[in-house]
């Protein structure tokens, strides 16, 4: 699998993109979501969570840091925005979260990158001329 790139022009399209992305995620998948404020990370995450069949409300984990969904497989939606470093990650108790058999979506991974499990997929979002540009890179592709 190679890196793919795409342009998105509405929140609906972003959510739909998340739903498509969900098909490539399996238990143990760890997705890092990078991009500035307002580029659509949480909207993309919502698409993934909806695709797993969750019908309840899905809100931003910025304040809560982690929102866990009892889907099949279980999904953890993390946002490290409010963290400063790896110490904060462990202080928050996030180090106790079970990685196995679940899907992780992690926004702002660079805030505590050394504390995190390694990604299986990297997603980069940015706004470019009114549109949202998404680049999806399987993690192993970074190394080869």
């Amino acid at each position: 699998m190679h890196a793919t790139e795409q342009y998105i022009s509405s929140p609906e399209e972003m959510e739909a993109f998340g739903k498509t992305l969900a098909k490539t995620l399996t238990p143990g998948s760890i997705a890092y979501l990078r991009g500035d404020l307002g580029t659509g990370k949480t909207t993309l995450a919502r698409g993934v969570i909806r695709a797993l069949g969750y019908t309840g409300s899905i809100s931003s984990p910025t304040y809560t840091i982690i929102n866990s969904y009892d889907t099949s497989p279980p999904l953890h939606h993390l946002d490290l925005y409010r963290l400063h470093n790896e110490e904060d990650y462990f202080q928050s108790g996030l180090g106790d979260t079970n990685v196995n058999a679940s899907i992780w979506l992690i926004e702002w991974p660079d805030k505590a990158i050394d504390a995190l499990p390694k990604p299986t997929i990297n997603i980069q979002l940015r706004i470019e001329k009114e549109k949202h540009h998404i680049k999806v890179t399987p993690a192993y592709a970074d190394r080869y």
Partner: protein
Amino acid sequence: MLILGIETSCDETAVALYDSASHQVDQLVHTQVDIHAPYGGVVPELASRDHVTRLAPMIEHFLSERFIKPSELDGIAYTRGPGLIGALMVGACLGKSLAYGWGIPALGVHHIEAHLLAVMLEETQPDFPFVALIVSGGHSLLVHVKGVGEYHLLGETLDDAAGEAFDKTAKLLGLSYPGGPALAALAEQGDPKAYHFTRPMMHHPTCDMSFSGLKTQIAKTYAELPEDSCMADLAASFQAAVVDVLIAKSTRALKQVNSKRLVVAGGVSANQRLRRLSQTTFKKHGIDVVFPKLAYCTDNAAMVAYTGAVRMAAGEFDSDLSIQPKARWPLVDLRKPTS
């Protein structure tokens, strides 16, 4: 009934005492604590497990300073959820352990219910039923409150909380995070009509809200702005959009349940524009608007102590010694107090 309240659901470590006989409340929040105090040290911006080192000495200091002996307490109320699980665990463990050691009952309280009932700490309390708008960094919801434990969710944010939108927009405009209050202050000096931002979901026939798209609009506008533009205008226009949505959705909620009483709580209720416009808009329609004191709007233990006191007075207590905090806990799962 003298109840000790403990709040550790997220960043704040707070303890309080509520006396139901005199309706008096007294509280201590860690951010007010002098860092040279015996239990002090540097307060990190993200508390979480740091509650561990702070909470027990805080309770000891708080009680001894007021000459309150544990034997005078009738119960301990702690925040059981929703919140950050590691943070909740600290308050739940210590609260229940102290109660066991002191031979008094403990009760786990719902954080949002406590916010809803914070207004009851005021001297004059609104009568039930009322509609509550709770707007903070972590929550944005509209609830029909018929009585204690009788809650009907009318609407909530589908993405970012209103306070979160303020904090993130502040960051986009170059203010440090969390810059919500600084952004609001800047907005007071700007022209709210300088830029037009769409009011997300304002005309949807529901009470649900959405603030995430507004952030994207700001990011795009800011990126194309000439360098000498007035940031205050941008801030004011953003604030106007958020406040318009909050007022429109509150109005819809009040109509939906045919209520004439609105309670606004949460950190965003400190917003001056929201306060001003609420008073003028709702007064016109004969609606009473109540804002609790700011100290009871942001996360605090006074509201936890009060909520615990109300439920314990009805005979509700934790039935065993198990520690069961809940990271997710829908408000509508609550019931009227039962013994």
